[in-house]
C-alpha cells in the first residue's frame, strides 16, 4: 500500500465531497429521490467520490495473474482512500459544528440546516461524521474491488447501475410513457416524485445485467462467425450498403428510429415534449455551430448573434408588436409575411450577416477570432436592448404578440406540435451537415482546419470557404432563433436570453458530443439540455456543469463522446511546433522577441 498515493487520493476525493456540499449541489439535490426513500441524488453525489477515489487509486497493475492474490490488499488501499476522503468531509462538518452554522452560512450560503441534516442522516453531527467516515471507507473499498474485477463482471455491474440511476433521473418521463402504453408501472414507479421502487430498481438492475451479459455472449459468437472486421462499429456517415446486398439491418434501424421520433411526443406527454422541443432547438443550433467550429475549425463565441437575428427578424417579418409601458404598439417596421416564408427569409438574412461578420475577421487566428466573435455577440445583445433601437426591437421590454406558424388550424406553438416543427428543421440540418461532410466543400474545410497555409497553397480559397462556413452556420442558427420566437411568442433580450451563455452552451453541446460529429451534437443536446430541463433543481448549476463539461472533455477526451474519426486524430495530435527550435520556427522566435515583456528591453 502506497501511503502517499493513498493520502493524496483521499484528499482529492474529500475535497470533491466538500466542494459538492459548499457549492450547494448536495443540499439542492437532497429532495430528489432516485430509489425509494433511501437513495437521493444528493446521496449519489456523496457516494461517487469515495468510490471513484478508491477505484482510481488502485488501478490494477498490468500483470493479470497477480491481480487475484492482491484483491485483499487492493480493497484495503481503496478503503483507506475512501476513509481519508470521508475524514476530510467529517472534519469540515466538525468545523461547521464548532464555529456555528449561522456564522459559516454568512459566508457560504449553501451550508444550510438541510445540508447538515442530509450529511448527518438525522443523527448528531459527530454520529453523522462517524457514519460518513465508515461509509466512505466501505465505498472506497468497494470501488477498489470493482476496479480489480475482471471486465466481464465489472461491465454488467456498471451498466446496471447506470441504467437504474438513469431511470431514477428520468422519473418525469418514463412513467408517462408507461401510462400512455397502458403498461403496469406500480412495480417501478408508484408516484412520479419518489423515484423508483426498491424492488423495481433491483429488477431493472438484474435485467440490464442479464441483457449486457447476453449481448456479450451473442457478440462473441457472431464475431467468431463473421470474422473480426464485422465486429467493428460502422463509422459515422459510412453507408452500410455494399456489404451484403440489401442493407436490411440499416433499413430496419431507420424505420424504427423514424417511428420512435414521430411517436415520442405522443408517448411522453406535453411536459416532456416541451423539453424535447428545447433539445431540438439546441440540436439545430449545435448543428449550425458544428459547421463553423467542427467542420471549418473557426471558434465562434458569438453564435448567439445569429440566434438573435433569427428570432428578431422572424418576429418583425411576421408582424409582432413592441411591448411598451403602455401596452402593445406597432414597431417602425413590421411586415406580415407567411411564417414559413419568413423562416426561409430569416435564414437568408442570417447568411448575409454571417458574411458581413465573417469578412473582417477572416485573417484572425484562433483565439483572436474567438474573442472578436464574442464581441459581435455582445454588440448584438446590447443593440437589441438599447433605448436607441427601441422603436424597432422594443428595447429591454422586447417584442410581443409574435405570429404562430400554422398549417390550417394546426398551430405549432403547442409543445407537442412544436416538436414536429423542430424535428423537421433538425432533419433538414442533419441532412445538410451529412451531405456537406464529405463533399468538396467539406473536404476544403477539413484541409483549412488542419493547416490553413497548406490549404491555401494547394488551391483552396480559404477566404471563400471561411465565409461560406460563417454563412451556413449562421443560417442554421437563425432557424433555431426563428423557432424559438415561435415557441415563446414574445422576445426580450434583457436577462440572459441572448447572452454569451447561449453561445457557450451551444459550444458545450458540440464539444461534449464531439467536434464535427452529427450524432455527437444530438447526444450532447440530450445530455446537456434535455436532462437539466427535466430536473428543475438543476437550473442554478448550469454554468458549473457546462464549465466542468468543457474542461473535462478537453482534458480527458477532446474528441467527444461520439467522436468523428478524423477529428479525433487531429485533436489527439501533440503540437510540437511551439517547442521546436529549428529553422521553421525562426519566424516564431522573431515574434517572441518583438512582443513580450522582453520587447522593450531586448530591442
Amino acid at each position, binding site marked *: 500500500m502506497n501511503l502517499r498515493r493513498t493520502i493524496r487520493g483521499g484528499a482529492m476525493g474529500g475535497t470533491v465531497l466538500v466542494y459538492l456540499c459548499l457549492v450547494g449541489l448536495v443540499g439542492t439535490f437532497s429532495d430528489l429521490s432516485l430509489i425509494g426513500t433511501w437513495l437521493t441524488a444528493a446521496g449519489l453525489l456523496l457516494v461517487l467520490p469515495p468510490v471513484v477515489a478508491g477505484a482510481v487509486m488502485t488501478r490494477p497493475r498490468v500483470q493479470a495473474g497477480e491481480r487475484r492474490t492482491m484483491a485483499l490488499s487492493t480493497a484495503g488501499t481503496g478503503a483507506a482512500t475512501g476513509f481519508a476522503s470521508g475524514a476530510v468531509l467529517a472534519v469540515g462538518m466538525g468545523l461547521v459544528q464548532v464555529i456555528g452554522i449561522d456564522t459559516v452560512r454568512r459566508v457560504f450560503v449553501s451550508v444550510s440546516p438541510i445540508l447538515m441534516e442530509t450529511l448527518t442522516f438525522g443523527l448528531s453531527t459527530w454520529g453523522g461524521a462517524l457514519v460518513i467516515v465508515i461509509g466512505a471507507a466501505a465505498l472506497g473499498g468497494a470501488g477498489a474491488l470493482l476496479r480489480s474485477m475482471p471486465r466481464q463482471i465489472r461491465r454488467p455491474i456498471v451498466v446496471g447501475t447506470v441504467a437504474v440511476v438513469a431511470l431514477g433521473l428520468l422519473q418525469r418521463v418514463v412513467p408517462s410513457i408507461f401510462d400512455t402504453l397502458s403498461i403496469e408501472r406500480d412495480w417501478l414507479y408508484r408516484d412520479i416524485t419518489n423515484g423508483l421502487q426498491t424492488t423495481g430498481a433491483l429488477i431493472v438492475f438484474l435485467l440490464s445485467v442479464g441483457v449486457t451479459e447476453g449481448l456479450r455472449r451473442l457478440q462473441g459468437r457472431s464475431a467468431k462467425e463473421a470474422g473480426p472486421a464485422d465486429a467493428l462499429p460502422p463509422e459515422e456517415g459510412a453507408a452500410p450498403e455494399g456489404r451484403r446486398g440489401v442493407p436490411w439491418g440499416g433499413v430496419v434501424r431507420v424505420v424504427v428510429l423514424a417511428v420512435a421520433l414521430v411517436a415520442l411526443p405522443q408517448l411522453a406527454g406535453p411536459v416532456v415534449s416541451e423539453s424535447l422541443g428545447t433539445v431540438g432547438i439546441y440540436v439545430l443550433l449545435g448543428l449550425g455551430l458544428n459547421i463553423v467550429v467542427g467542420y471549418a475549425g473557426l471558434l465562434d463565441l458569438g453564435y448567439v448573434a445569429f440566434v438573435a437575428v433569427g428570432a428578431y427578424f422572424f418576429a418583425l417579418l411576421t408582424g409582432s408588436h413592441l411591448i411598451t409601458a403602455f401596452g402593445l404598439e406597432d414597431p417602425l417596421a413590421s411586415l406580415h409575411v407567411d411564417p414559413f416564408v419568413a423562416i426561409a427569409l430569416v435564414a437568408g438574412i442570417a447568411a448575409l450577416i454571417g458574411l458581413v461578420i465573417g469578412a473582417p475577421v477572416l485573417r484572425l487566428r484562433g483565439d483572436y477570432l474567438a474573442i472578436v466573435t464574442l464581441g459581435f455577440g455582445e454588440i448584438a445583445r446590447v443593440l437589441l436592448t438599447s433605448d436607441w433601437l427601441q422603436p424597432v426591437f422594443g428595447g429591454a421590454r422586447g417584442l410581443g404578440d409574435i405570429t404562430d406558424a400554422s398549417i390550417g388550424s394546426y398551430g405549432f406553438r403547442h409543445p407537442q406540435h412544436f416538436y414536429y416543427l423542430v424535428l423537421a428543421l433538425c432533419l433538414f440540418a442533419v441532412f445538410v451537415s451529412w451531405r456537406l461532410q464529405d463533399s468538396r466543400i467539406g473536404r476544403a474545410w477539413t484541409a483549412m482546419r488542419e493547416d490553413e497555409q497548406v490549404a491555401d497553397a494547394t488551391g483552396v*480559397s480559404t477566404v471563400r470557404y471561411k465565409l461560406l462556413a460563417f454563412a451556413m452556420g449562421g443560417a442554421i442558427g437563425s432557424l433555431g432563433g426563428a423557432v424559438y420566437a415561435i415557441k415563446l411568442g414574445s422576445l426580450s433580450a434583457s436577462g440572459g436570453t441572448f447572452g454569451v451563455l447561449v453561445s457557450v452552451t451551444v459550444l458545450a453541446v458540440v464539444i461534449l458530443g464531439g467536434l464535427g460529429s452529427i450524432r455527437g451534437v444530438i447526444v450532447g443536446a440530450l445530455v446537456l439540455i434535455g436532462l437539466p430541463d427535466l430536473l428543475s433543481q438543476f437550473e442554478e448549476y448550469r454554468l458549473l456543469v457546462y464549465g466542468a463539461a468543457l474542461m473535462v472533455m478537453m482534458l480527458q477526451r477532446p474528441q467527444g463522446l461520439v467522436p468523428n474519426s478524423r477529428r479525433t486524430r487531429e485533436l489527439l495530435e501533440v503540437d510540437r511546433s511551439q517547442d521546436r527550435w529549428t529553422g521553421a520556427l525562426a519566424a516564431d522566435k522573431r515574434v517572441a522577441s518583438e512582443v513580450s515583456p522582453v520587447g522593450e528591453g531586448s530591442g
Partner: protein
Amino acid sequence: MAASAGGRKLGWTVGFPWRRIILTLVAIGIGVFVLIGSYRTLTLPDAERIIAETWFQLMVRGLALGAVYALIALGYTLVYGILRTINFAHGEVFMAGAFGSYFFAAAFAESGFLDRHIVVSVIVLLLSSMAVSVGVAVLLERVAYRPVRRAPRVVPLITAIGASLFLQGTFSGFFGPDFKGYPKPEILGGQWELFGVTVKRTDIVVFLTMVVAVAALQYFVRRTTTGKSMRAVAYDREIASLMGIDVDRVVLTTFAIGGLLAGIAAVLYSMTFGQIGPFMGFLPGIAAFTAAVLGGIGSIGGAALGGLLLGILQSVGPYLLLSGFHVPSPFQLKDVVTFSVLVLVLLFRPAGLLGSEEVDRL
C-alpha cells in the same frame, strides 16, 4: 480541385487589393462618423450642450476605470507573452479576488474597524484579495493550462472558457448569485478639488495605485532574476529550458503575478463601484483584453496605455459621438465602443499601439 474552377472565374480578382480598398473605405467611414458625431455634439444648442466640467469629469472617470482595466490587462499581456494564448478565465481571477476581500471588508465595516484603522484595513483587503486571486490563477494554470500546453491551439482555449464558467458557477454556488454591497472607507468617499474641478477621491487613489503597480512590475521584469527568466521564456521557451530555466515554474510565476495584479484591481474596482457579484469579471475581463490588444499585447507599457485609453474612450466616446444624433441613453452603448475598438485595432493595427508588427497573430 475546388479552387481551380473558382480561380478561373475569379481570375482578374486575384492580386487586386480588395482587402486594402475595403479597409480604407471602412477607415474613411469611421473617420467621417467620428468627425460628424463630435461636431454635432459640440454644437448642440445650449440647453442640451454638455458643459466642459462634465467632459472633464467623464475623462477622470474614464482614467480611473482605465487604470483598473490596465491592471487586469497586464495579466493578459504577461500570459500571452509567455504562452501565446489568451487566458479567457482571467476575468474570473479578478472576480475571485473581489470575493476574497469582500468578507474582510464587510466584517471591518460592521465593526467600524475599516474607518478607525484605514491603512491596516486596506492592507488586509489587498492581501486577502491578492492571495485568493493568486491561488485561483495558480490553480487555473495547473488544471486548465499545463495539461494541454502541447495540444492543438483550440484545446487550451476551450478549457479556459470552461474554467471561466466553472469559476462563475462555483462562486455563485459558494456565496450566492446576487450582487453584494462592498463597503467604501469614509475617507475615500469625498471629493478633491483638482485644477478647479471636483474629482472623486477614489478615482485618484485608483489611478495612483495603478501607476505604482506598473512601475513595480516593470522593475520586476527588467531587473530581478525571476523577471529575466520570464523574458527568456517569452523569447524562446525551448532555449530557455536548455539554459537551465525551469519553464513550468516560470509559467506558474507568470500566472501568479497576473493574479496578484488582478487582486489589486479587484479591490480598487469594488471600492469604486461599491458592488460585487460572481459575474462581475466578464465585462471588465473583455475590456481589459481589448486594452491589452489596443496597447500591443505582450508589452507592459502598452497594457497600461491601452487601459487608460480604453477607459477614456468608454466613458467619453458614447457621449461625444452619439449625443449629437440624439441617441437616447448613450452610456448603454459603452460596451459596443469596447468591442468596436477591439475589432478596429485587430483590423488596422493588429500589433497595437506600442507593439511591433506581429506575424503570429494573422
